[in-house]
């Protein structure tokens, strides 16, 4: 009997955990058969696959934007009927569609909800409308921990380190100096009766870059990887050559039906990208899947229960290949019509077994976004400054409240007594203010306000600050670039022109079911402002040694010459005896012997 025994240690593999159940059965069954033993395939007999409690859906939404760009939004959703946080029972150990690395993170740190996003670029609300999944530039992480956790800060620190290893990002820079606990924003998006904000942690790293090294592990979390389904379109050379790129992971527990009799864990991986071929002058207002992604679709992911492509045709673009399937959805307060392509059906791919979409766009009108915000730093010099946040309410007749959350690092010392909120050049007093002052090198400022925005108006929030002088070891290696201040977050329930549907159905397209809709007349919106880049007073790190040398030389030569010129006098003097004679005299003096001449 020949065996092959591997002498070395094994590779750690990311894929082995999620190998197909069917191929595992094949391998286990074929080995004993081929070994020549007759009959007993004991492994095959006792191995019956358990009923699948998880399902996977993928979808792509393509929306031409008002400015001529095109917005593509991928969403991959895995629903799993299990419980990571149960105590006293066996830990979850068999993972099929849900990635094992994330499952272990959830159970180890008792995480109730986790949202992490990596974004490159800034979402221009006025030109592009509202995104399906908003995200600020850089990295953003907010987590609700389970109410049984005793040391939330310790869990948070370890969680950020583990996530930095999973996503190849420097999330380990998240510590107490940039973490806040918002009291009113960032309520749980899934099931969460924990409204105690001590279990919430929010941090953002505006400087974090996103590149292929973040996309690679993100793609590896998908059940089909980047080999089948919609993920084959994700080629980094095209995705990062865009105005906006954002990838995110959202994990939360949700109800599976209206009465909430059964709960499931939902993992959503979203990737939003805005291609700017038209505005950067590379082409006309026509796109194809091949032009955007340099790939076409060949098959749906075999593990997916539904795989669809939605194309927004509300503005009547020319679309080929045409499809009879249409669907209407009310999303973000607007009723839009979509062409639906179902990739699980073979006829979508046609005879060439490849699906390429062609879109030629003519329309020009766009629904004006009702809520929009900007932020900038005013002032001059490196001592003081002023942060201005401007919020626009473009609704013609309705006023609504917004919740503004600002997290400012400690080295910009805010003077809260100078905080002013003005709307239409009149003072507008917020009805709820939560302010936590910063502690130097310990925690940042947190300011949350509930402001009522009058209809069709501009509201300005200003606060003055002073820049601190850091210790010389606290500067980054490139301090002249400046220091980043994270985006402000504005959360609001915006009144909707079109009635939203509160029906809960499992067949809802994913892009309209991300945020739960509680009432018909309004929809939830989160707007992020630009991050700020401020210069702090920076010492001159370059060449201090040379400067000191030069200065000392100039001073010595200049001052020394003047001093000599003014005070030197010449007088005759006897030559002093040489050193050796002086040393000998010194020794003779000690001995008491008469000295030399």
């Amino acid at each position, binding site marked *: 009997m020949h*065996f092959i025994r591997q002498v070395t240690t094994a590779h750690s593999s990311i894929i082995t955990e999620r190998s197909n159940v069917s191929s595992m059965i094949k391998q286990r069954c074929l080995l004993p058969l081929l070994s020549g033993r007759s009959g007993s395939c004991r492994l095959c007999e006792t191995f019956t696959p358990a009923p699948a409690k998880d399902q996977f859906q993928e979808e792509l939404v393509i929306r031409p934007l008002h400015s001529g760009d095109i917005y593509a939004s991928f969403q991959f959703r895995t629903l799993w009927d299990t419980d990571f946080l149960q105590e006293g029972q066996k830990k979850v150990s068999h993972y099929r569609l849900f990635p094992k690395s994330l499952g272990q993170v959830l159970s180890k740190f008792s995480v109730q909800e986790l949202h992490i996003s990596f974004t490159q670029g800034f979402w221009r609300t006025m030109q592009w409308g509202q995104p399906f999944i908003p995200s600020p530039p850089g990295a953003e992480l907010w987590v609700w921990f389970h109410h049984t956790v005793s040391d939330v800060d310790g869990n948070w620190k370890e969680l950020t380190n583990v996530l930095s290893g999973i996503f190849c990002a*420097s999330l380990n820079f998240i510590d107490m100096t940039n973490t806040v606990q918002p009291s009113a924003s960032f309520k749980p998006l899934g099931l969460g009766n924990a409204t105690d904000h001590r279990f919430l942690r929010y941090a953002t790293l505006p400087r974090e870059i996103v590149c292929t090294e973040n996309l690679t592990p993100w793609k590896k979390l998908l059940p089909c990887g980047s080999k089948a389904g919609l993920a084959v379109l994700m080629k980094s050379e095209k995705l990062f050559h865009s105005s906006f790129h954002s990838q995110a992971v959202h994990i939360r527990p949700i109800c599976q039906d209206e009465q909430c009799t059964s709960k499931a864990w939902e993992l959503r991986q979203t990737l939003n990208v805005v291609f700017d071929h038209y505005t950067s002058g590379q082409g006309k207002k026509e796109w194809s899947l091949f032009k955007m992604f340099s790939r076409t679709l060949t098959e749906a992911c075999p593990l997916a229960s539904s795989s669809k492509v939605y194309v927004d045709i509300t503005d009547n673009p020319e679309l080929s290949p045409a499809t009879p399937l249409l669907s209407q959805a009310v999303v973000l307060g607007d009723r839009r019509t979509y062409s639906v392509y179902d990739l699980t059906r073979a006829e979508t791919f046609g005879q060439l077994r490849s699906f390429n979409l062609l879109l030629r766009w003519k329309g020009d009108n766009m629904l004006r976004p009702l809520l929009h915000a900007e932020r900038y730093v005013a002032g001059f010099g490196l001592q003081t400054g002023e942060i201005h946040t401007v919020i626009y309410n473009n609704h013609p007749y309705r006023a609504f409240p917004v919740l503004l959350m600002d997290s400012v690092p400690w080295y910009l010392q805010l003077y809260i007594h100078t905080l002013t909120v003005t709307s239409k050049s009149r003072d507008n007093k917020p009805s709820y203010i939560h302010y936590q002052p910063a502690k130097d090198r310990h925690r940042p400022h947190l300011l949350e306000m509930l402001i009522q925005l009058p209809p069709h108006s501009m509201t300005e929030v200003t606060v003055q600050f002073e820049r601190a002088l850091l210790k010389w070891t606290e500067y980054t290696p490139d301090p002249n670039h400046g220091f980043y201040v994270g985006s402000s977050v504005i959360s609001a329930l915006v009144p909707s022109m079109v009635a939203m549907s509160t029906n809960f159905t499992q067949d809802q397209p994913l892009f309209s079911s991300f945020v739960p809709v509680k009432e018909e007349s309004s929809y939830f919106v989160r707007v992020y402002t630009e991050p700020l880049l401020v210069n702090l007073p920076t010492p001159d790190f370059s060449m201090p040694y040379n400067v000191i040398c030069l200065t000392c030389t100039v001073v010595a030569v200049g001052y020394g010459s003047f001093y000599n010129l003014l005070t030197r006098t010449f007088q005759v003097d006897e030559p002093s005896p040489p050193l050796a004679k002086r040393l000998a005299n010194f020794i003779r003096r000690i001995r008491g012997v008469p000295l030399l001449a």
Partner: protein
Amino acid sequence: MYSLSLHFFYPWIYLKKRIFTFCTIETGQFFSSGHTNNWAVLVCTSRFWFNYRHVANTLSVYRSVKRLGIPDSHIVLMLADDMACNYRNPKPATVFSHKNMELNVYGDDVEVDYRGYEVTVENFLRVLTGRLPPSTPRSKRLLSDDRSNILIYLTGHGGNGFLKFQDSEEISNMELADAFEQMWQKRRYNELLFIIDTCQGASMYERFYSPNLMALASSQVGEDSLSHQPDLAIGVHLMDKYTFYLLEFLEEVHPASQANMNDLFKVCPQSQCVSTPGHRTDLFQRNPGSVLITDFFGSVRKVEITKDTINLTSSVKPPIQSIAEHHVLQFVADVSSQNPKQKDWHPPDGFILGLWTLILLVFFQTYGIKHLKHIF
């Protein structure tokens, strides 16, 4: 059956030709290199867009090492700045090594473990010595053992005895030598290959004193390492000369290749590189001619075929050691039990002797020997 079982393993496990005559040869020949796993630590220490070439250097070595079989879990890649998605890069998500954009060394499947401000001297030394905080994830650790062959590649700006990290701090050659000694004391490597591509790179390996180290540098003390060629579309120099020719050499190497270290020493002679590459092998036990390139750059696995059945349920007993393996283990034990090298007393060298002779000569000349008794 063999083909199906091999299906479980990665395709670059290469059964050496010797295996088929295994029944007749001794294990000594089989375990000649003594390592069972391979690690690589690849560091780029420069920040800013005009140091594009250092990131391209590191990524080309990363690409070769991955191609020859070392998986991402065994590579610690440290890039001090992001060139691929830099806003100045006219082709985002790419880093090219050849002009006219021939070869994208960044690729589609890259995992950077330390990036941006995380690449510091402290983190680098912590990775080498293993003294990391307990919450550090596995991908950021160098989990090598005493049977690991490690490849360490550094590139950036350097000088005589130091290497600059991110324009704000330096690592000296003494610190590096001490870190390697710590690694030896803690049995964190079997053999280590150190390659450095900076100006005056040979000064960085001058102070090594731990066994089983081989070092290569792109230039001698007093010489500068030069960059290779600029690309006019990207606007910066793409690679350094030494690593460019090293990449060309490594592109010819495949997992079954028998190329050895002597070929690596010949990479980039002075006619191509302008600087003189140097190497150091005195601390290395084996003859460089018998060391394969794939011992460090690849991850060639050894598969041992046995015709005996091994009963796994019996009580634990030590595996039968072959004589040669026993010798190897004995040798390791001897080396490890040696006391740390004490500084031997050397008689004073010529300079000190000459100085004192001069002093005494002047003294006696001034006073004459016969006068001495009057003075004292």
